[in-house]
């Protein structure tokens, strides 16, 4: 490739500004998956026997699925070779960190580049951050302050050692290891993630945040997040993610479990910006994630997601409305551009009486991408007077992309009320011209129009995240219109 061409290529592919690779030493497991690898991971993490057994059970279940990945989603990709993946990669361990100053300067620089200087975060924004690089949690900030309130916020591995009873009680209680193909895989090989426990009656005074980063080549990331909100507590949790640009596809199969006790409220916000692959669909993250919450009496779980990254997204953050008067919410913006594919939505399972759920989904597709909403609203026969409202809007940019809606409604109770609205629209030429005529360029106009379109969802995000999401949206849509 001539130098000019290379520069041109670099320039035209610079949409993904998080595509750098950080150069710190990492500790990898050999490629491939076997019982030995599961044992290796468990050993590396010095886990108790029961957890190893749990992992092995999950692994055996996964094996019994004979590598038959789910095929019902509206996505297409070559068969994944699970023996080609590295299942454990950690930045080479250093002695226990006493403060942020001891963090590997390269890792710190990585987070600075991502725009989340941990120190800044700590000092200014009052957001507690847990940062996960590849498979291992690197640093959790604000821990001491939180612990004064009895709030536990730490990496999953630490929690296994420090709070084994809580982990043992809640792990797999919302997403069983046998739930689905990727959940089983995750349960066998999960390496780290975040754990959070809010005690009875405590309102967490700050946003808790986990930042995920895949750095090493050829690795999969399999983190697990577990949030337990005890009776009458409240927590708002943020999750962000990025990965380097690489030519091969990388697998991210995470599990998030939320357990909301009586009267508890959990708000979970995600801004997902994994590397989406290049314009021709080369590379990018396969984002196959299982997220679910269980809501007891009078409790509330809200999922808000802004999905702009990943070459393929397959995720359905769901709520099991178990207790009477519990509430589930799902607010989603899913953007696909170029060759990206997304099949995302939610499941609201109404078991308790007078339960209520709201689904607002905004799909935006540009380039040659494919964007599907898939959602299930299930009202069980005992769920008297349950209500659901769903609104699924699709916005098309250009004429080569696709938008699809697959709503499933299963209503087994006559007193339930279920509403579903759906629209498909295009960004109008007349809207763009109107903006142009006021001095606004076409690219900015599309950003403005799409942001307006997503407003209902952005309004649900914490302030800082909303600003980030808006910027991200504008970047993701670059070049999406003729």
């Amino acid at each position, binding site marked *: 490739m001539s130098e000019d061409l290379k520069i041109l290529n670099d320039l035209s592919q610079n949409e993904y500004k998080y595509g750098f690779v950080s150069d710190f030493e990492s500790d990898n497991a050999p490629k491939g998956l076997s019982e030995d690898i599961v044992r290796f991971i468990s050993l590396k993490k010095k886990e108790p026997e029961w957890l190893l057994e749990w992992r092995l059970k999950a692994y055996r279940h996964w094996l019994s699925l004979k590598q038959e990945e789910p095929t019902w989603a509206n996505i297409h990709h070559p068969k994944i070779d699970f023996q080609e993946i590295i299942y454990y990669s950690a930045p080479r361990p250093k002695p226990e960190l006493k403060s942020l100053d001891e963090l590997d300067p390269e890792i710190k620089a990585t987070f600075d580049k991502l725009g989340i200087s941990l120190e800044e975060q700590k000092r200014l924004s009052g957001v507690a951050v847990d940062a996960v690089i590849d498979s291992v949690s690197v640093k959790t900030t604000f821990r001491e302050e939180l612990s004064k309130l009895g709030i536990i916020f730490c990496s999953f591995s630490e929690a296994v050692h420090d709070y084994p009873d809580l982990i043992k009680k809640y792990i797999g209680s919302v997403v069983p290891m046998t739930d689905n193909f990727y959940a089983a895989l995750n349960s066998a090989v999960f390496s780290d993630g975040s754990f959070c426990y809010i005690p009875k009656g405590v309102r967490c005074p700050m946003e808790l945040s986990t930042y995920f980063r895949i750095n090493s080549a050829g690795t999969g990331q399999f983190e697990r997040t577990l949030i337990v909100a005890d009776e009458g507590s409240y927590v708002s949790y943020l999750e962000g993610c990025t990965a380097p640009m690489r030519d091969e596809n990388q697998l991210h199969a995470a599990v998030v479990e939320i357990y909301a006790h009586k009267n508890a409220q959990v708000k979970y916000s995600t801004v997902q910006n994994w590397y989406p692959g290049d314009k021709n669909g080369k590379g990018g993250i396969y984002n196959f994630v299982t997220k679910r919450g269980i809501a007891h009496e009078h409790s509330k779980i809200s999922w808000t997601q802004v999905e702009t990254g990943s070459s393929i997204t397959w995720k359905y953050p769901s709520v099991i409305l178990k207790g009477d008067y519990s509430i589930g919410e799902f607010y989603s913006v899913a953007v696909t551009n170029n060759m990206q594919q997304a099949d995302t939505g939610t499941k609201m399972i109404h078991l308790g009486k007078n339960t209520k759920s709201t689904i607002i989904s905004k799909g935006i597709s540009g380039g040659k991408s494919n964007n599907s909403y898939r959602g299930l609203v299930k009202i069980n026969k005992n769920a008297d007077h349950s209500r659901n409202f769903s609104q699924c809007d699709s916005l098309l940019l250009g004429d080569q992309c696709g938008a699809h809606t697959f709503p499933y409604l299963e209503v087994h109770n006559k007193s339930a009320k279920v509403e579903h609205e759906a629209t498909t629209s295009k960004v109008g030429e007349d809207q763009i011209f109107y*903006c142009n*005529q006021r001095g606004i360029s*076409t690219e*900015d106009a599309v950003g403005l129009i799409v942001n*307006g379109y997503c407003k209902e969802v952005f309004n649900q995000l914490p302030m800082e995240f909303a600003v980030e999401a808006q910027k991200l949206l504008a970047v993701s849509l670059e070049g999406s219109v003729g």
Partner: protein
Amino acid sequence: MKENKFKKNSSQALTTQHETRMLSIKNLKASIGEKQILNGINLEIKAGEVHAIMGPNGSGKSTLASVLSGRDVFDVTGGEVLFDGENILDLSPEDRARKGIFLAFQYPVEIPGVSNANFLKTAVNEIRKSKGLEPLDSKDFLVMMKERMKLVEMDKAMTQRSVNEGFSGGEKKRNEIFQMAMLEPKLCILDETDSGLDIDALRIVANGVNALRSKERSFVVITHYQRLLDYIVPDFVHVLYNGRIVKSGTKDLALELEEKGYDWIKEIKADAVEFSNK
């Protein structure tokens, strides 16, 4: 000596006159698809002037507005348009807007979820940026907005609502004039701003326009009806027919049109064609 001075003055006057020419449309032709709509328009507009363009349906009035503002559904097939001496036909719509051309739309477009205030702030700051000015901060912007809102008797709630969404016909047109007041253009093109307005709304809109008239700002007022010109009194009136200006005059021409309708214009046109064929 005296004579010399006079001469000098007169030549200066000529130059000044030449320099104040803001818009020069020369033999402008445009089509949509196969259909020729503008058949050679000639028009000169100086700074501070108000030109009314009238004509029957389908004569090309709105096409002229669209072509001037750069809407790309029309193909310019001939002629040129000079704005401040520069040919603008190759410029994008946003660049024309940044140079000071404003179109008040006949059918203002709705943009759901984008507040009027946010939309205008983006627009104002884009235009400032093109002039090398710093963006306005929120406080200055609000002060400016509050002041200009009065021009069209707009209330604060309207600035918080989504752009034109759920606005009545009158509110939409008032909003166009409000945007004009905010963006401070040099050339304002009003495309049938009076259509769909009741008499009170018409007065409010016209008052807003009149308040914005100045020595530096010119207007092209496109309308079917003389009524609007009772409120916005033009310096010149042109009649457009079959994509050509077939008659020009002062505001009296508008009154004549009101009285006689457009049929006699069509006859003039026929004569003119015959004449030019000779």
